[in-house]
């Protein structure tokens, strides 16, 4: 009995590789690679792309949340949670727009003294939030956009995984 499920578990764990937290490989901005093979590079240190990324369900509970300075995780949790105020507001404003004109990228949600918080919402109202260091000037709008798109693709991959149970928190090998 326990043999087969354990095999499944291991597969499920491999499902999500959120690479946005990892350093950019090589030159150029949009170089986040969605592959499992660059974990060593992940430990190589700065420059970081984002200090915190979060995926939230339609009902606003977190699927996945991870921040790089792990010592003050709670601060980022609060930051992501409060940013949902703006996400909600933007979504309700967006609902009035036509369906095909809908833009998934929500732009800068709000700046704090030290961080910038960006948002992105899928058509099924799954929210992505990314916190970027304010001093990180290398990230322009385009880079943020492409990071979100990659994140969205990764998320879609997770959802396509038959071993993933919808509604569960997402496990990522990066997070372990």
């Amino acid at each position, binding site marked *: *009995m*326990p043999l087969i*499920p354990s095999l499944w578990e291991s597969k499920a764990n491999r499902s999500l590789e959120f690479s946005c937290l990892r350093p950019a490989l090589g030159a150029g901005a949009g170089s986040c690679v969605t592959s499992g093979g660059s974990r060593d590079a992940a430990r190589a240190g700065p420059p970081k792309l984002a200090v915190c990324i979060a995926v939230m369900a339609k*009902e*606003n*509970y*977190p699927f996945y949340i991870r921040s790089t300075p792990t010592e003050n*995780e*709670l601060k980022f*949790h*609060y930051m992501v*949670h*409060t940013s*949902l*105020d*703006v996400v909600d*507001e933007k979504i309700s404003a967006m609902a009035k727009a036509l369906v095909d004109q809908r833009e998934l990228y929500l732009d800068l*949600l*709000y700046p*704090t*003294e030290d961080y910038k918080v960006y948002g992105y919402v899928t058509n099924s109202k799954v929210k992505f939030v990314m916190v970027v260091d304010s001093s990180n000037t290398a990230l322009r709008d385009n880079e943020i956009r492409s990071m979100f798109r990659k994140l969205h693709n990764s998320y879609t991959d997770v959802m396509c995984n038959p071993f993933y*149970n*919808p*509604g*569960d928190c997402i496990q990522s090998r990066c997070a372990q």
Partner: protein
Amino acid sequence: MSPTQWDLPVELCCRPMAFVTLTGLDVVYNAVHRAVWDAFCANRRADRVPISFKVLPGDHEYPKCRPKRTSYEWYIPKGILKTGWMNKHLNLVPALVVVFYELDWDEPQWKEKQSECATRVEIVRQSLQGRNTKVAVVLIQKKTPLPPGEDVIASERAAALCNACELSGKSLFVLPHTDHLVGYIIRLENAFYEHAQTYYYTEIRRVKSHKEFLNKTTHQLLFVRHQFKIAFFSELKQDTQNALKNYRTAYNLVHELRAHETNILEIKTMAGFINYKICRLCFQHNTPLDAIAQFRKHIDLCKKKIGSAELSFEHAAWMSKQFQAFGDLFDEAIKLGLTAIQTQNPGFYYQQAAYYAQERKQLAKSLCNHEASIMYPNPDPLETQTGVLDFYGQRSWRQGILSFDLSDPEKEKVGVLAIQLKERNVAHSEIIITLLSNAVAQFKKYKCPRMKSHLMVQMGEEYYYAKDYTKALKLLDYVMCDYRSEGWWTLLTSILTTALKCSYLMAQLKDYITYSLELLGRASTLKDDQKSRIEKNLINVLMNESPDPEPDCDIFAVKTAQKLWADRISLAGSNIFTIGVQDFVPFVQCKAKFHAPSFHVDVPVEFDIYLKADCPHPIRFSKLCVSFNNQEYNQFCVIEEASKANEVLENPTQGKMCLVPGKTRKLLFKFVAKTEDVGKKIEITSVDLALGNETGRCVVLNWQGGGGDAASSQEALQAARSFKRRPKLPDNEVHWDSIIIQASTMIISRVPNISVHLRHEPPALTNEMYCLVVTVQSHEKTQIRDVKLTAGLKPGQDANLTQKTHVTLHGTELCDESYPALLTDIPVGDLHPGEQLEKMLYVRCGTVGSRMFLVYVSYLINITAEEKEIVCKCHKDETVTIETVFPFDVAVKFVSTKFEHLERVYADIPFLLMTDLLSASPWALTVVSSELQLAPSMTTVDQLESQVDNVVLQTGESASECFCLRCPSLGNVEGGVATGHYIISWKRTSAMENIPVIRTVITLPHVIVENIPLHVNADLPSFGRVRESLPVKYHLQNKTDFVQDVEISVEPSDAFMFSGLKQIRLPAQAFYSYQYFCQATGSTHG
């Protein structure tokens, strides 16, 4: 140094207005002067010119003007801006001094008065020596002045007065004290305003003129000072555009200053002042984005200018103040009509101010933790001779010293110590909480509920640090549900941890238990070791002992708390706490499930209570009780497990009420429903689970309905969506997620064990007493009592049917309208097992069509369920649809005596009425008799005896009768003449003897009666013999009142020989009968 040293000075924050002093007014004793002064002061709204007035005596000493510096070459400034400068120009040095003097143009003692006035002006001039302040004279006059030019004396004397006072004509005013005082005053103050503006203009020029003497090496400070002064004077001049421009220049200059640890505070202070002015003016100019941009720039430039590390809390305090001041400015602008948005509102600035205030607190905590033995230095290095600093932002112990080297390190050390010791007494938490609550108010306004909650958490935590645990708990408790409902468990856990500390430190039993319950639960993200600790504490509390202190609590607070807990123990009573779980996520989950959506009353109701604990160790509960909407059942659903107080954690795996973490425990309950509850819903209203016992403390967890807490509905939804295959469990175990709460069930009556048969011969015939035989047979094992029968038309059909359907038990008499359509509760006695009874019902249907009939049999039976005798009421019903048809059709026709069809009958001439009765019934009918009831207009020719008595008609057979009638002449009747009724008495041939005969009345058709003038009646023998004469007699009857000529001709057939008149003509008398004879002889062949 006061705690408010970081507050911006009042003179900086106010709106600068031209300063004008009024002299020569005696506002205390002189009513006219008072009125003038009031007119200046009252109603200073936005439409009046911005001047601040002050009444001063004529000999008032104004601040002395320092002698003009001819060269700046050897001058070294000691600071940027003197602390008194702004106040001096706002409130001390006037732009204009007005001398009020009572003097009319026709004053008899003109000369004396003129010179007195000149003296007063001179005195004012004396005290303003060296200043550019303007002087003006206002003559208060009793008379209304004549239009200019008409009063020759006035213009002469005015010129003379100007001369005497050395005034220009523009500075002399006349104020007639008449009705229009306010109007004159407004004109006066407009004139004053112009003078004031000229004054400030010259001041700006004066300051600008210094610039050329300055050099960049030694006079850097002066550049800032002068620029600031120009801007400030521009503001006094109400030239805000130039003021803004100059402040901006000043701001850039201040950052060009060489900064060092010794002067960084002064630079920051000035930068803060100038920034404040710029932002204020930007908001005033309705360019909020400029204000925000300036502020951002300011913060970016100053953020890193921390200065002395020992006093780094000062930097945080300053930063906090910058944000707070900007927030205030922003908020003020909003009050004046600016619209803010969700992502850009004052709340963010207050929030940031609060963060810096927190940082200040942290830094102060680490930098100011001096031993208690260290005394505050004496003499106080923070004291100055005047009590205030000379320059903004300097250190009191080294004022005016510009050198970057510390000349006296010892003095510096003492100064720093003094500041640190002072900082220790600052109520940091109070500052932080005020800022946070400001921010909360803003975020509430701009639709940021989560931000608001977050800030409230911080407020709560700050109250916790400030040891105001009651307020802390109140705030934390308020926001917890927001995080709970959105499922942010990490955040909830963090809040709960703080709340637990608060409740521990206050020894609030109920709160302590509630938070512990949730922190042990599945919503908590605490590590297992933490959970174990909390569980242990919880058990301790339940055993009436003190819990261990929470980690990271203040040692002194813990001491107090331990005492409080000790006191709590000695207190007896009120040791049972009931906690409703629907608002939080406790560590035990509960689900109630009835085995079926309905139960028969004769079988016991069964349901399961599922319990699951999420705490790290097995735990033993003392009692479980279930409450129902009918409280009678509560007593049957209680599990109590007597255990000693200290056994809560012992023998963990034994006993029903001991829950092993992660394992689902199923508890089965059974009870017999009351017979009164048949047809009702039984609902579980609550489930109570008790932990601990009465000897110690006891917590009762109360689930409303069939279980479920704050998180379970979301979990249920998720489980429903999930397609995860659950691993197989042993037979007696179930997956928690797969249990669906079913908190109510229906009680339905017992299944009847009798048979009900209906015997009858459909269809029913109209109006007959239709017989329905009901057979009831008991298949029960015991005697059944009180069998009752309800039979008749099923309710709920067409209302007309009820009127036309009647039911009776007695078939011997016909039922009429008074009989009901449904007979209810006919007692039929008891039945032994296997016994059967028959009941006959008679139904009379007045109309054709189909009807539904209901036969409902109810009875009582004694049943033993769960060793309990109960009386069950059972019932069984049968319905049957019965068609009603006409039993027969009756056709009626009129024929002549020769059986010829008649369209109409002739008066007085006999005719035949033929009835034809065709049976339509599928069953044989017996026509008992028939009767013809004639209308009065009809007479019968012979007897009206029935010809069809006791005729039996099979289906399709018919029975006919024939009656000979005559109708006397009635004249012309519209629509014919009524004939009468034909009444048939009949019954089913199969019906029993005592069944009454049914009389069916058929109304005969009307017939048209016609009068005829001549009636011919042939009287022929019924037969003739060959070669014998056959007498033929014709009767001719004249029916009219007149004599008629009749011609008769006879045309015999060839078969007869004829004798007699063949042709005759005769008159026929009225109403007279003739007989005409003729004889015919012949033979018939074939």
